[in-house]
């Protein structure tokens, strides 16, 4: 058929991303000569299943979602991923944080060092159980850590989602911002969220970015939902790098020919220089990505995501 269907996850489905979506659609449409139809959903599973069940050509997903989708249908493949500032895949990553309120950070330290042991029996806030950086990655390291103790030998992901097993209470923020606010407003003691997701609202106050012990402050005048927690500070007890999110395709639907055309346009220089997709740093324009260096999209192979795949098992 002559339509390319592109599925967007809830995170990218907002009005503020509309211009980026439309621009990507326009460029793909020009490259392939086909109409692009954007499909938005508020439901994460529906988005994945749409791609898996041959109802969509193209999607921008999380790493974890890609791995799941690929497991269920191997026609789902990566097509491109955003690089880091260097313009290569070497730093094509962001960070999954475990954060605690600065005032309470000492409770989580043992001999002056942060210790994961201390998060047992606390109130913990994840993003949602489908999030890569807001659940999968932190959960993997937590399970890794605790399963070495006899008491928690059979700890599973499901246990982490339920109050009363490892954590006294488990919360889901439903978004990275939500998870962060759970922490800052005192509803949770520890929270997982990712660096890029909150960068508009916080600034580094102390220490080195994305390292243990770094302290961040919520900016004055931060937008909702941070408006109620202005000036509050939190400390990172852990920052784990996570591979950037891929654009993915369903090969059975899109076909080799279009795959190549789309890959070409996504990884082109014009694409990287399009300000509607890569907003220049400091501009107050909303876009899918921001550009602070040589960021662009590059082709990526399936194996690149093996680390995530291994983590899931």
């Amino acid at each position, binding site marked *: 058929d002559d339509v390319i269907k592109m599925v967007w996850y809830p995170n990218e489905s907002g009005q503020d991303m509309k211009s980026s979506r439309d621009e990507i659609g326009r460029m793909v449409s020009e490259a392939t000569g086909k109409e692009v139809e954007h499909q938005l959903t508020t439901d*994460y*599973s529906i988005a*994945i*299943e749409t791609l898996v*069940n041959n109802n969509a050509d193209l999607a921008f997903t999380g790493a974890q979602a890609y791995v*799941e989708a690929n497991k*269920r249908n191997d026609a789902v493949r990566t097509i491109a991923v955003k690089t880091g500032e260097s313009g290569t895949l070497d730093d094509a990553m962001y960070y999954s944080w475990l954060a605690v309120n600065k005032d309470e950070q000492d409770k989580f330290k043992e001999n002056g060092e942060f210790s994961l042991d201390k998060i047992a029996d606390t109130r913990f806030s994840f993003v*949602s*159980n*489908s999030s890569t950086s807001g659940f999968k990655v932190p959960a993997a390291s937590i399970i890794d850590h605790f399963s070495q103790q006899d008491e928690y030998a059979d700890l599973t*992901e*499901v246990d982490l*989602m*339920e109050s009363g097993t490892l954590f006294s*209470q488990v*919360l*889901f923020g439903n978004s990275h911002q939500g998870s962060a606010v759970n922490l800052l407003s005192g*509803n949770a003691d520890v929270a997982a969220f990712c660096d890029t997701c909150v960068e508009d609202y916080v600034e580094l106050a102390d220490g080195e970015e994305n390292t243990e012990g770094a302290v961040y402050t919520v900016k004055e005048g931060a937008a909702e939902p941070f408006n109620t927690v202005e000036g509050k500070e939190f400390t990172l007890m852990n920052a784990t790098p996570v591979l950037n999110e891929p654009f993915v395709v369903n090969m059975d639907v899109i076909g080799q020919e279009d795959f190549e055309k789309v890959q070409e346009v996504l990884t082109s220089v014009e694409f990287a220089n399009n300000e509607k997709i890569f907003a220049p740093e400091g501009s107050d324009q909303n876009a899918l990505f921001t550009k602070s260096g040589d960021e662009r999209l590059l082709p990526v192979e399936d194996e690149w995501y093996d680390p995530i795949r291994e983590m899931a098992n």
Partner: protein
Amino acid sequence: MNEKTMRKSRWQTVIFLLIIITLTYLSSIITSFSFADGLATIPEALGWMTSNLMVTGESLDKLPNILEKLAETTFMSIAATTIAAVVSLFLGVLGSKTTKVNNFLSVFARFIASVSRNIPVVAWSLVLLISFGQNSVTGFLALFVGTVGFLTRAFIESIDEASQSSVEALTATGATYFQIVGKAVIPQCLPQMISWVLFMVETNIRNATLVGILTGTGIGYTFDMYYKMLDYNAVALVTLTIVITVIMVDLISNYVRKVIL
């Protein structure tokens, strides 16, 4: 009435049908809905269901946990419905034509019912979730609000329908307002009301899935958890337990209804 007005009412039927058809057509344009396409996918949908939504031995391990959550949800629904019923009883008595105290209170009662019924449960859940956090109370309140709206309306109708004549008779004996309400209106409408309450318990267990997803409580939360993990076997199990519970509640309430009505 004469032949002309009868013709007119024929025309009214035709016009009514035309309006419905036009609206249907407009709606499908706005939403780019194609009924034929939809129908065509039903076999595929059934195919997917049978291949994915199967309870496996592995998923059965999760049963104890699921049952616990299901119990929480069932209790939550019952509590929300029962307490809502008490509130609705007052609103219903105030709102009904036959038993109203004055017009202001009557309109007020109807207004409350209408607002709480019409604000979507999604909106209530979201608002409550922000302030109450993820716990049963949030789910309880979200169900409670919607139930009050629905039951009040149902109660008002039951009272209106049932009691005009006995209210008149008791007024004539010199009975007071509360005596009339307590001894004529309520006994007469009680079976109908209980029937509505049972209906709502069942509806709420089902709604609790949605509310649970939104507020992170009860079986809805469990459903959402497995659903987001794409663990459809477990989803099937959760659904099955909900189905069984709802059908059981339905059977019980049908029995009760048959005996009391």
